[in-house]
C-alpha cells in the first residue's frame, strides 16, 4: 500500500493528494461547497488563472519563469481599456469596432512585455528571475503612469456584457475562451516541433544546441507565448471588471507559478503536462472558494496559498529523491 502510494506520488505528483484533501476538508466545512452551482462558479472564476498558468507553464518548461505576468495583465487591461474607450468616444455607434481595436491594442501591449523579456533572456542571457522582475516593475510603473492610478472607464457596455458576464448555451463565455486556449496549448505542446523543443531546451540546453535546435529562438518565443496568453486573460478580466485597472495582477505571478508547480511542472525545466497545469489552477481557485465559504479571512487565505506553494516545491524535491531511490 505504502509502496503503491509512493509510486503514484512519483508518477503523478502531489496534486491528486491535495485535491482529495481539499475536497474532503471543504465539504466537511461547508454545506454549500459540494454543489453544482458552486463548482460551476469555481470553474468560471478559474478561467483567468488557468490561462495565465498555461503561459507560465511555457516559461517553466524551458527552465525559467515569468514574474511579470501580473504586470502583463495590468498593461493589457490599461492599454486595452484606454484604446477601447478612445475609439468608443470617437465612434459611439460602432461598439464592436471599439471592442476589436481595443482588444487587439491591449493584447499587443501585453505581448510587448513578452518581447522585452524574450530579448533579455534569449539574446542577452539575463536570468529570467532578474529580467522578468525588472520588467514587472517597468511595466507596472507604465500602467500606473498611463492611468494616473485610477480605473479607466468608458468602454462599450457590450464588451462587459458579452466577454465578462455573457453566456452561450448556458455556459459563461470566458469558459469557451479557456477551453479553446487549453486545446490550442495542448496541441502546440504535444503535436508540434516547437512544443517538443520547449521540453528539450528546458531538459538540456546544450544537447538541444547539438541537435541543431535554435535554442535562443525557442527561449524568445517562450516569453512571447507566455505574455500573449496572459494578455488574453487580461482582456477577459477587464471585461469582467468593466474597467481598465493597473492593480489587477498583483497575485498572479505567485498563483500561476503555484498552479504549475502543484500541477507537477518541474522548476528545473523539461517536465510538465498541460492537463495537470489546468488542474493545478483549478485547485488553487477551489481552495480560495472553499476558504471563502468556510469564512476564512482573506488575509489568512494569502498565508495558505504561500504555504501550499512551498509545500508543493518540497514535495517536488522529495519526489526527485524518491525517483532516484525507486531506480535502484
Amino acid at each position, binding site marked *: 500500500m505504502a509502496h503503491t502510494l509512493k509510486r503514484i506520488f512519483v508518477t503523478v505528483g502531489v496534486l491528486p493528494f491535495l485535491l482529495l484533501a481539499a475536497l474532503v476538508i471543504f465539504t466537511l466545512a461547508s454545506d454549500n461547497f459540494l454543489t453544482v452551482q458552486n463548482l460551476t462558479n469555481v470553474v468560471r472564476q478559474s478561467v483567468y488563472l488557468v490561462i495565465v498558468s498555461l503561459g507560465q507553464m511555457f516559461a517553466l518548461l524551458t527552465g525559467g519563469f515569468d514574474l511579470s505576468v501580473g504586470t502583463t495583465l495590468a498593461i493589457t487591461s490599461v492599454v486595452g481599456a484606454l484604446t477601447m474607450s478612445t475609439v468608443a468616444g470617437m465612434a459611439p455607434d460602432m461598439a464592436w469596432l471599439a471592442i476589436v481595436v481595443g482588444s487587439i491594442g491591449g493584447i499587443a501591449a501585453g505581448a510587448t512585455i513578452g518581447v522585452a523579456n524574450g530579448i533579455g533572456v534569449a539574446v542577452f542571457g539575463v536570468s529570467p528571475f532578474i529580467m522578468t522582475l525588472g520588467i514587472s516593475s517597468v511595466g507596472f510603473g507604465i500602467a500606473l503612469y498611463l492611468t494616473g492610478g485610477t480605473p479607466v472607464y468608458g468602454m462599450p457596455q457590450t464588451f462587459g456584457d458579452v466577454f465578462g458576464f455573457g453566456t452561450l448555451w448556458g455556459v459563461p463565455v470566458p469558459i469557451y475562451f479557456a477551453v479553446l486556449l487549453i486545446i490550442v496549448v495542448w496541441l502546440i505542446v504535444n*503535436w*508540434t*516541433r*516547437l*512544443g*517538443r*523543443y520547449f*521540453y*528539450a531546451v528546458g*531538459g*538540456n540546453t*546544450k*544537447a*538541444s*544546441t*547539438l*541537435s*541543431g*535546435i*535554435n535554442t535562443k529562438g525557442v527561449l524568445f518565443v517562450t516569453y512571447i507565448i507566455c505574455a500573449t496568453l496572459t494578455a488574453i486573460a487580461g482582456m477577459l478580466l477587464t471585461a469582467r471588471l468593466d474597467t481598465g485597472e493597473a492593480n489587477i495582477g498583483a497575485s498572479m505571478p505567485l498563483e500561476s507559478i503555484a498552479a504549475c508547480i502543484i500541477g507537477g511542472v*518541474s522548476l528545473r525545466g*523539461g*517536465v510538465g503536462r498541460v492537463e495537470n497545469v489546468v488542474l493545478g489552477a483549478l485547485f488553487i481557485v477551489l481552495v480560495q472558494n472553499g476558504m471563502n465559504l468556510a469564512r476564512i479571512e482573506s488575509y489568512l487565505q494569502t498565508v495558505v496559498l504561500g504555504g501550499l506553494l512551498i509545500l508543493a516545491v518540497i514535495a517536488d524535491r522529495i519526489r526527485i529523491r524518491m525517483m*532516484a531511490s525507486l*531506480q*535502484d
Partner: protein
Amino acid sequence: MTAATSEPALIEVRGLSKRYPGVLALDDVSLGVRAGEVHVLFGENGAGKSTLISILAGANQPTAGEIRFRGEPMRLASVHDARARGISAVFQEFSLVPQMTVAENLFLGAEVTVGGLLAKRRLKRMAVEIIDRLGFPLKPNARVETLTRSEQQMVEIAKAFRAELNVLILDEPTASLTERETDQLFELVARLKAGGVGIIYITHRMQEIRRIADRITVLRDGKFVATEEAGVAEGRLIELMTGREIAELFPEVRSEIGDVRLTIADLTTARHSVDAASLDVRAGEIVGLAGLVGSGKSEVMRAAFGLERIQSGTVHLDGEDVTGRKPGEMMDRGLFYVPPDRRDEGLVMIRPVRENITLPALAEPPLAKGLGLDRRAEKRLATTLAERMELRPMRIERTVDHFSGGNQQKVLLAKCLTRETKVYVFDEPTVGVDVGTRAAIYRFIADLAERGAAVVLISSDLPEILHMSHRAIVFYRGRIRAEFEGEAITEEALLSHFFEREAA
C-alpha cells in the same frame, strides 16, 4: 595485492567500490600509501582515479569497501572530517571563494573566534606563518580572484597546512603551471616526503612519474590493475593503462576511400584552443584524432561544427565554405557531431528515448508535417533505430536516465542516424561503456565508413585509434603534432608525440 609489504601503510583502501546510477565508477580497488612516499595514480580518463581520490578526501562516500588509516578502519563523512585527520586534497577544480582574501580562504570553515567574533589579527598571523613556511609568494590580503591560476593553486595547497598534514592528494597539479612553478612544487613535495607525509599524485605525464614517483598504481575501467615500483618501463605502464583487449573487439574496416568531404584549413579558435590546424577527411575514411585532454583534438571538430568561435581559417564541406555556421546549419549540410559527455551535452536525460533519438530530425520530412509533427512516423523511426542499436530494454518511452551507461550511449549514437549525414564526428564514443557495447559501437562506426561516410574518431583511448583509423593525427597543445597512415599507426609512434618533448 602488491601493497602488502613489511612496511605498514599510512592510508589504505580495501575492496573499495563506488556505484553511480548506471555506472560502476570504482570496482573493488585496493591499494596502500606509505608515509613519505609519492604514490602516483595512473590511468585513462574515466579509469576511476578521480572517484578514488574524492572518496579519500571525504567528498564522496564509497558504496562498498573500507578505508584504513594507520591500520585503523575509519569513515570519512565529509571533507572536514578528512581534513581533521590530516588528509587534504587539491583538486583541479579549486574550492576557493574568489571574492575573499587569501587569509580568509585559508581558514574558511576553520575560523578562530574570540567570544563569537572573528579573531582577524590572529587569523592573519597564522596565514602568514603558513605561507612563509611553504615559501609561497602570496600576500595574505590579496583577493583570490586577482591571483593567477598557479597562485590560486598555492592557496589551495596552503589550505592543507592549517592543521597537521598526513596525506596530501594532488590531482594533476602541474596542468596549469609553468616549468619554474612546477620545480617549486616538486621541491615542496620533496620536503613533505622527508617529513613523512604520504602523497597521492595523479598525472598523465611520464616525465613527472620518472621525476617524483616512488610507486605507481594503474587503474583501468574502475578496476585495480597493478602497483609498480618506480623505474618501471614506460611501455609497460601504458600497456597496463590501455590494456590490450581481445582483437575481435575491433572490426576490420573494409571501405573504399573516395573524395574529400571535409576540409579544415589553418583553423585557429578564438580562445586559441586550436592553433592553425589543417586536416581533411575523405568518404569511406576513418580519421583518428589523438592527444591529451585539452590538446585540441576535440576542440578542432567542435569549432568546425559551430560550437566554438573561429578566429581564422576555413571549414569546407563538399567544397562549400561553411566556416562559422551554426550546429543546425552544419547538420543540414551533412556534418554530425556526437559529443563525448552524454549527460552534459548529449541527451535530455529526463525525456524518453523516443524524443531524444528524433530530436535532430523533427524539422525535416518525414517527421515534420508543416508546423506539426507526425508522431506515428516519429515512433516508427525511433523504434527502427532503437532496434538497430539493440537497445536493452527495448522501451522507447522510458526516460533516458533509467538506462545503463552503455544503452544511453546507444541512444546518443542513434541520434546521428536520423539525418542524412556525410561526415560523422564521434568524440569519445566509448567513454564509460562496457566491452560488449564497445564492440557494437566499433562495428557501427565501421559500417558507416563502409557505406561511404567520412568519419572522424576523436579518442583518448589509444587502441581505439590504432585499430579503427585509416589515418591518425596527434594533437598537442592546440597544434597538429604528427600524422600517421596505415601501418605506421603504432602505439609507440603516437605516444611519442603525446607528451612534451624531452630535452634532447
